């Protein structure tokens, strides 16, 4: 075990001096295993041999360091401890209010209902907090046993302690997850839109590669990937495309892909071997359910090729493309992916609903804090979130300053993209948590 650690230290030190170009595969595994908070889960017996800070600085490319706190660090914070105590108190109050031995003053039906909802919401959190307290007491007891004279007892205590440490970590992780509220949109499916940006044909070729990457990503997670719109360029690039993605946690993960992606490479179309920078934009629109968002059919104009002449039995065409225009906003969606006109119409409607719902959500999310690094929605739409540098074979996400290598594997949309996505998720969760604690402490004071 020790030799493995020594080897790791050596490799880390090497990598610090080696440029980001040639990353060794085995190092990559360690790097990703270590950096963003999940290292505890990946390695068998974690030991705090290295300080958190040294590990993390190695992997950021921007001077402004992104610090992702570990679970321990978060729990060491006073604001978190106070917030947890506050939650416990709130739970206790609500529970007392709704129980039979309630207060003397009459609570209205509405108030009672709110309190009941609060109780059921907070119950799992409070349970975990109490379990954590219990575990911490347990570990204190085993500490005493560790000093015992009997070596058998000592060994037993050692085992106990290890289990406790693991349990504490798991409970803390669980508490953090319970604290972060789930967004309504996180449970929905999504419509993915890709559009070529600056760079002409090269941008369109890159857009096609990105669309394929997301198709791979969907497959990797077992989501369905249903192409709604698909406008190609002459040499196999993609001007614009959209797909309906559905599956567990699809929106929750894909939302971090929204923004401007930048590619730096020598294009296929380039004759003189010069490096170009092109862009493409990814938009992620949550798919609303029928109930939550309705469109008035009178607001729509549907265009098909059968519009002229008498239609019906008079005409036989194989052109079943459908184009729907939402008259009040001018938003357009069209589809010619299917042979059945009805199916094309359904797909176009789906794309249109997602676009309109996206617009509606913009108004709501504009109320959210501007200070976050990871923006979702219009604020994030025009931000350059990621650069793909083919010459140096690296992909850098600018929001968290994370760099990974091996573009070819990354563009498969499998493990590498998944890891980056998980890191973004963790960072976003941390930001949410910090905001939550900030608000909480302000309420108290």
């Amino acid at each position, binding site marked *: 075990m020790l030799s493995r650690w020594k080897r790791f230290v050596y490799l880390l030190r090497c990598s610090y001096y080696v440029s980001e170009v040639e990353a060794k595969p085995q190092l990559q595994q360690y790097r990703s295993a270590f950096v963003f908070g999940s290292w505890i889960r990946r390695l068998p017996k974690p030991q705090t041999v290295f300080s958190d800070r040294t590990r993390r600085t190695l992997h950021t490319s921007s001077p402004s360091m992104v610090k992702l706190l570990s679970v321990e660090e978060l729990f060491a914070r006073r604001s978190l401890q106070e917030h947890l105590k506050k939650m416990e108190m709130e739970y206790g109050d609500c529970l007392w209010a709704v129980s039979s031995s309630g207060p003397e003053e009459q609570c209205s039906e509405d108030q009672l209902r709110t309190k009941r909802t609060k109780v059921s919401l907070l119950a799992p959190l409070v349970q975990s907090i109490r379990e954590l307290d219990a575990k911490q007491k347990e570990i204190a007891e085993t500490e005493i046993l560790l000093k015992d004279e009997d070596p058998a007892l000592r060994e037993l205590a050692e085992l106990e302690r290890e289990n406790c440490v693991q349990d504490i970590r798991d409970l803390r992780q669980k508490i953090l997850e319970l604290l972060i509220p789930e967004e309504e949109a996180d449970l929905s499916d999504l419509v993915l839109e890709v559009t070529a940006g600056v760079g002409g044909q090269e941008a369109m070729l890159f857009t096609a590669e990105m669309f394929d990457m997301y198709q791979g990503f969907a497959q990797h997670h077992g989501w369905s990937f249903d*192409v709604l719109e698909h406008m190609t360029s*002459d040499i196999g690039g993609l001007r614009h495309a959209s797909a309906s993605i559905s599956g567990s946690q699809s929106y929750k993960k894909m939302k971090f892909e929204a923004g401007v992606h930048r590619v730096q490479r020598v294009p296929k179309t380039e004759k003189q071997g010069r490096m170009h920078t092109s862009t493409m934009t990814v938009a992620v629109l949550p798919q609303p359910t029928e109930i939550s968002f309705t469109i008035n059919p009178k607001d729509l104009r*549907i265009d*098909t090729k059968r519009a002229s002449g008498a239609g*019906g*039995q008079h*005409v036989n065409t*194989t052109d079943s493309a459908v184009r729907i225009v939402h008259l009040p906003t001018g938003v357009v969606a069209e589809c010619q992916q*299917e042979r059945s006109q009805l*199916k094309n119409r359904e797909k176009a409607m789906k794309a249109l609903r997602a676009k309109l719902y996206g617009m509606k959500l913009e108004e709501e999310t504009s109320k959210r804090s501007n200070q976050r690094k990871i923006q979702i929605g219009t604020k994030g739409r025009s931000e350059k979130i990621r650069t793909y540098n083919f010459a140096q074979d690296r992909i850098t996400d600018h929001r968290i300053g994370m760099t990974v290598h091996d573009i070819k594997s990354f563009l498969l949309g499998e493990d590498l993209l998944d890891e980056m996505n998980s890191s973004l998720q963790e960072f976003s969760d941390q930001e949410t948590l910090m905001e939550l604690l900030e608000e909480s402490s302000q309420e108290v004071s």
Partner: protein
Amino acid sequence: MNNDAETVFVLNMWRRSLSTRYRCFGRRSVGPKGVWSSHAVRTCSSPVLPAGRITALEAVDFWRRHFEERGVMEPDQSSQHIIAHVLGAKTIESLERERLTEFLSQETAEQVWKLCTRRLSRMPVQYVIEEWDFRDLTLKMRPPVFIPRPETEELVELVLTDLLMKPGTGVGADTQHTCLEVGCGSGAISLSLLKSLPQLKAVALDQSQDAVDLTTENALRLRLQDRLQVHHLDIMKDAETVLSLCRPVLVLVSNPPYLFSEDMASLEPEIFRFEDHAALDGGEDGLRVIKQILVLAPQILSDHGRVYMEVDPRHPPLIRQWVEVNVGELQYVETRHDITGRPRFCILQKAKAKRDHKLDLD
């Protein structure tokens, strides 16, 4: 012949022609435009299969130009659909870039040539590839059986919406409802309804034996044959037999021949030469078969049963008037429009005879 330089050169020519939409001019001149020059087209009635290898995209473009030259309707859709079908896909968009740019095997190319040549004779694409989609079904198509139109997809939608509102049609329901289709053709309407409503039973008839055979074949392919009965009957001549077929039904649905006889001559060759005229010609006013269906409807329908029909845009007011005078037991409910905004569907309901109504009022 097939050395790399030549292939690359030919590919470059194709690529350029693809991107600049290169048209006819230079074709007659002598020049390396690839092994399949227009000379071949001019001399024979159908183009010769090229000696060299060709990719799917090149084939699409080649045939698109040929269809254009020969005045075949919808040249790009035709070539795209046919070639996509040969490659095992429904649309060209659903094929990956790699498949489209790799060379076709000899058999595949021959198949493409065979099917596209058929299209040159103005045979509808649906007959060339022998299948087409209707709602969420893929149906076999065969001349001269009538090819379902997109408007009819909406007719099925209307029927479904109404049926779903009725109790006893959903999954696990007790009552079994039956619908009768007059003029089933390829079976599109009946099979769509059966697919969407597991408790429904359907009876379909057509005056053409070919249509009956094709509907049966499609039912078997979709495994819906248990709930469908198909009969070779002519609603005009075999009215008595039709009435004895089944107990009163909840729904009578039809896409009857509704073209005016005078309009038949102006039909596109795709329709005129290949589709059964009996499935199109509705007589002088287009109402011949429609009227017969409406006359028989009250005896076919159960109480409050409904008739759903697809008609010519000029028909709804005529039908409304005619029914009021001639079919007392049928009440005209409403006219629905198709998505192009044309009045296309007539819905009528079996009600108490109007004469009885008047008596009640007195």
